[in-house]
């Protein structure tokens, strides 16, 4: 039994406020032949510096950056150690210190956390969180094998060598415990592929039906291909500052809070524990939760790392009821099931009622707290080291009221060799003030929850 003591429960605290001011993305694709890794990072960096309505010139802003946090999931993919040095040099930011960050699928979130800590501590006034992945360096099955090295190599990797096979048992168990239908899972895929249809950055846009999803080829039963993210080449950048610099750079800064939680690499090792409650929850809510034999928390149904990350991040930001206080979320939908599992962990629904977040309509554009309007991982990208930065950037643009600017401008579509759909529609959440995003690794080994709050 994991027993936590007072110090473990301490809510993280910045020594001074941290702000996000600008972001940049790339055209996410399976294989970007015409650009190398650092050249793709340059695309995201230029968008961040040149297109975010910043009040100083790109060269002036570069003159303010004095720290970089660099996210990259796996050296296996890049096949190049010390990519951080290549990128920092290529962006013209030498000799500023860059730290490489690696926490699996949560690498992007951890990268933002590291950059934020640099600002909060006073180490830096302006810090760049930048992440990338070049997954096309190998074919898809080899890529799956590499990713399966993020399961335990002694006890799990040889049992499938593909990550869907570590989530599929969770899907089976969750359906058994909490009555999740295949149709509800499919609805998550339909929603996120559809939202990706409105994004010029997206890799897997599509107007699918529930039946299309259920009829798509099987990866590991019960997860179909259309329920899974794909291998992506791409990069993302997010610029963080202290308060004074933030207002010097933009009229639309957002205050940032971010925290993380960790749990065992193997789901198998997650012993039953008491559920840490979020501010709006009571012990009575979960009295009947373990009603079936053998049920445990977090077990195969939930992610303690996500629950702890939410607990700490909500504590930092003073959020007492996430569904009421968040205007949108970007979740780590690597698989439909992991998306659904997270609804309980971050308090969008009580544990056991996660499917209702989809079925009620709350998760859709126009709903109470829409999820993954970016298209998420299933629809838009999972260039792993960049992912948790991409999700944060999409939240930032929503709060800044710039969804249309960054998704509806036909010049962006054309610069990627794409045509803006004739039936394109805006997914700008009206008057969005606060957003949260989740960055998630392994089968829940590392999770960060970040919160951006309108500060203008």
């Amino acid at each position: 039994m994991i027993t936590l003591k007072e110090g473990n429960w301490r809510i993280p605290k910045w020594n001074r406020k941290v702000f996000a001011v600008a972001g940049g993305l790339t055209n996410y694709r399976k294989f970007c032949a015409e650009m190398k890794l650092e050249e793709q990072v340059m695309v995201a960096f230029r968008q961040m510096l040149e297109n975010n309505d910043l009040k100083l010139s790109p060269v002036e802003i570069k003159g303010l950056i004095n720290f970089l946090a660099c996210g990259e999931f796996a050296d296996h993919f890049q096949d190049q150690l010390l990519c951080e040095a290549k990128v920092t040099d290529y962006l013209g930011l030498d000799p500023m210190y860059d730290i490489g960050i690696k926490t699996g699928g949560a690498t992007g979130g951890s990268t933002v956390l590291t950059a934020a800590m640099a600002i909060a501590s006073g180490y830096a006034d302006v810090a760049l969180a930048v992440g990338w992945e070049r997954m096309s360096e190998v074919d898809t099955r080899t890529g799956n094998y590499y990713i399966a090295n993020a399961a335990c190599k002694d006890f799990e990797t040889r049992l499938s060598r593909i990550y869907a096979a570590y989530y599929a048992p969770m899907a089976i168990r969750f359906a058994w415990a909490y009555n999740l239908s295949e149709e509800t899972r499919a609805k998550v895929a339909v929603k996120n592929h559809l939202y990706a249809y409105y994004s010029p950055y997206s890799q897997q846009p599509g107007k699918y039906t529930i039946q299309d999803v259920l009829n798509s080829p099987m990866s590991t039963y019960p997860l179909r291909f259309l329920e899974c993210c794909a291998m992506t080449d791409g990069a993302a950048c997010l610029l963080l500052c202290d308060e004074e610099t933030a207002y010097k750079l933009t009229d639309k800064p957002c205050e940032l809070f971010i925290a993380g939680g960790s749990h065992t690499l193997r789901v198998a090792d997650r012993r039953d524990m008491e559920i840490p409650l979020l501010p709006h929850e009571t012990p009575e809510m979960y009295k009947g939760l373990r009603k079936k034999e053998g049920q445990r928390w977090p077990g195969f149904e939930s992610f303690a790392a996500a629950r702890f990350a939410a607990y700490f991040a909500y504590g930092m930001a003073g959020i007492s009821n996430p569904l009421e206080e968040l205007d949108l979320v970007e979740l780590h939908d690597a698989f439909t099931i992991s998306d659904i599992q997270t609804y309980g962990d971050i308090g969008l629904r009580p544990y056991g009622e996660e499917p209702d977040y989809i079925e009620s309509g709350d998760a859709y554009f126009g709903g109470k707290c829409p999820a993954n309007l970016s298209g998420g991982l299933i629809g838009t990208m999972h260039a792993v080291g960049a992912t948790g930065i991409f999700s944060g950037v999409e939240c930032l643009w929503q709060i800044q009221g710039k969804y249309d600017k960054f998704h509806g401008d036909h010049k962006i579509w054309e610069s990627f060799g794409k045509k803006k759909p004739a039936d394109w529609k805006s997914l700008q959440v009206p008057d969005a003030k606060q957003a949260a995003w989740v960055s998630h690794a392994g089968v829940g080994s590392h999770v960060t929850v970040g919160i951006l709050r309108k500060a203008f």
Partner: protein
Amino acid sequence: MAARKKIAKYTGKPAKVLQSEPALVIEWPRSLVHRHTYGKLSPFFKGLTEGKLLATRCVNPKCGEHRLWLPPRADCPDCNQPMAWQELPQPVIGTVHTYARVEYAGAGIELTTPYFQIDVELPGVCTIFKGYLQYGTPEIGMKVKACFRTKDPTNTILDVYWIPVLDDTDVRS
């Protein structure tokens, strides 16, 4: 007479060009062999080849966790003290906690697809043990029996697998 010039010769194999437009893409072969130790868990993997399932238990009387660990650990995560080995009594009968049918596997898979991966609850064990079902169709709550690849062992986790327990006769090993 001038000494013969020593020239550096190319001894590699030219990289195969996969495409030349819009950018030059070459093949970059990799064939590597790593060396990996099972460390203090070596008794577990040796045990599989002898038809034994070995777990560990914390023997520190001051520790709060005295159930078995499987996968085993050499050291207790709660009190950080060394644990002791204990063999599970034969036949090892467990219950399917959850499962998945692997249809599309990554490179290097050593089992024929499709097959069922299962996660097994075992009495007295605080963790859940992942393996594969050699035949049959699993469901949650189904009883399964551990079998071992003692002949031609793989020296990996694949030396233990499970079969369905259909009636009492299957329980007798």
